[in-house]
């Protein structure tokens, strides 16, 4: 285990004109650590996630990432090409709506294989074998490999999106409501799968969710956001069992039990 964080975020803010997206967010993320970001609708969770994954540029603040060779790179000073390279190789991004993260008109196998080709894999047989392996890891039968995701259920699409993201062995995965929009029973299965993969692969992840049970199950640390700001952060079980901020108390009390 290394004794350096993977990501350092300092005073990050994003304004949309005069409207606050997120404001003054500071935290470190360590290798293998899962951080949950919770808060009500409009509190800035997606804005923060998009800034961190460089899909959006912040108005102010910094974020540095420790790349594989151990160097620290400032995310917002990298060239567009460098950023795209990071996103393709070292990061994953799981969207709430699988259609945003998949190519709906190419086969499931190609959705997974494409990412491998993007990191330089050229051997067709190997790519296909890896794709089959990953489909089975996310519990999709091999005989569905040539189907397009259009023909998949919501839960299957989400599992395919996860396979597409993890196949390149990323070190950091961003997830925006990965279980949102799914039936409760499908959610539970997906959550088990995610939990297993995150633990087995030792992934670091930032998971945006409005579901405190998801946060409890997946994350070790948690940040609670309101009106663009972090109102409370700490160990997930501490925040949920001994919430200190008025807003966190409201959030925790408004659900039955987590």
């Amino acid at each position, binding site marked *: 285990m290394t004794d350096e964080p993977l990501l350092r975020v300092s005073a990050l803010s994003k304004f949309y004109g005069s409207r606050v997206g997120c404001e003054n967010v500071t935290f470190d993320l360590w290798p293998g650590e899962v951080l949950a970001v919770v808060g009500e609708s409009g509190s800035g969770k997606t804005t923060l996630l998009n800034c961190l994954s460089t899909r959006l540029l912040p108005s102010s603040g910094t974020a540095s990432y420790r790349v594989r060779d151990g160097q620290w790179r400032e995310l917002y000073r990298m060239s567009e090409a460098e950023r795209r390279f990071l996103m393709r190789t070292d990061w994953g991004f799981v969207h709430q709506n699988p259609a945003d993260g998949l190519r709906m008109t190419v086969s499931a196998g190609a959705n997974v294989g494409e990412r491998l080709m993007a990191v330089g894999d050229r051997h067709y047989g190997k790519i296909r074998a890896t794709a089959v392996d990953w489909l089975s890891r996310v519990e999709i039968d091999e005989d569905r490999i040539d189907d397009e995701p259009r023909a998949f259920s919501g839960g299957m699409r989400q599992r395919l999106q996860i396979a597409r993201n993890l196949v390149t062995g990323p070190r950091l995965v961003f997830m925006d409501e990965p279980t949102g929009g799914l039936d409760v029973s499908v959610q539970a299965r997906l959550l088990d799968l995610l939990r297993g993969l995150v633990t087995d692969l030792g992934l670091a992840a930032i998971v945006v969710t409005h579901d405190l049970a998801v946060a409890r199950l997946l994350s070790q*640390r948690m940040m609670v956001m309101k009106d663009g700001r972090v109102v409370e952060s700490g*160990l997930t079980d501490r925040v949920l069992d001994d919430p200190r901020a008025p807003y966190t108390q*409201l959030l925790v009390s408004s659900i039955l039990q987590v």
Partner: protein
Amino acid sequence: MATPLVVSDVEKSFTMHLRDGVTLPVVAGVSFSIRAGECAVLGGPSGAGKSSILKMLYGNYAVDEGQIIVQHENGLIDLASASPRTVLAVRRRTIGYVSQFLRTVPRVSALDVVAEPLVERGEDREAARAKARSLLAQLNLPEKLWALPPATFSGGEQQRVNIARGFITEHPILLLDEPTASLDAKNRDVVVELIAAKKAAGVALLGIFHDLDVRDAVADRVIDVTAFAAGKVAA
């Protein structure tokens, strides 16, 4: 004699923002220490703050004031002010905790629930499962249940899984919150034996036991929590 846990002047209150910000003082001036190889028991009536103290020692409740000094990896750490990452490391290596109820994780078998803390500490999965089997057998959990997730188990069965999970590692400090509450007499005796073995191995134990027979069998001394009643100190 080594003293791996020293608590000084710890204070805890809850501020209920949803109830007009009323503050509920729970404990203040909590000071004690636990030596290696002894089992101390927190005593006092319901609501005195026994569980709250245990939860602060595990980093599950925040600490308002005071220090919780823990011997961790050849150094000393103040758990009251430690970062989440440090608290997690302390839980992995130094402090074990048996809660009153098992928090179940869907689809994970009882055997793996028990083995998990060892795997987290880097032990081989099969070796960890072997230890888990022997503990579950010792606690008389029927073998046909081992491969099933504990969510559907009875209260006593779940609690035995929870106890096995807490006792499987060699944490130098072990916290126990009424581990025997939902057990029958035979299994209570097993827990008493397990605690005796931990003491012999030099573990520092701090527990809460409502059952007087169990308490008498394991306690080297009782720490009276009413002495730390928050109102008393404030007055």
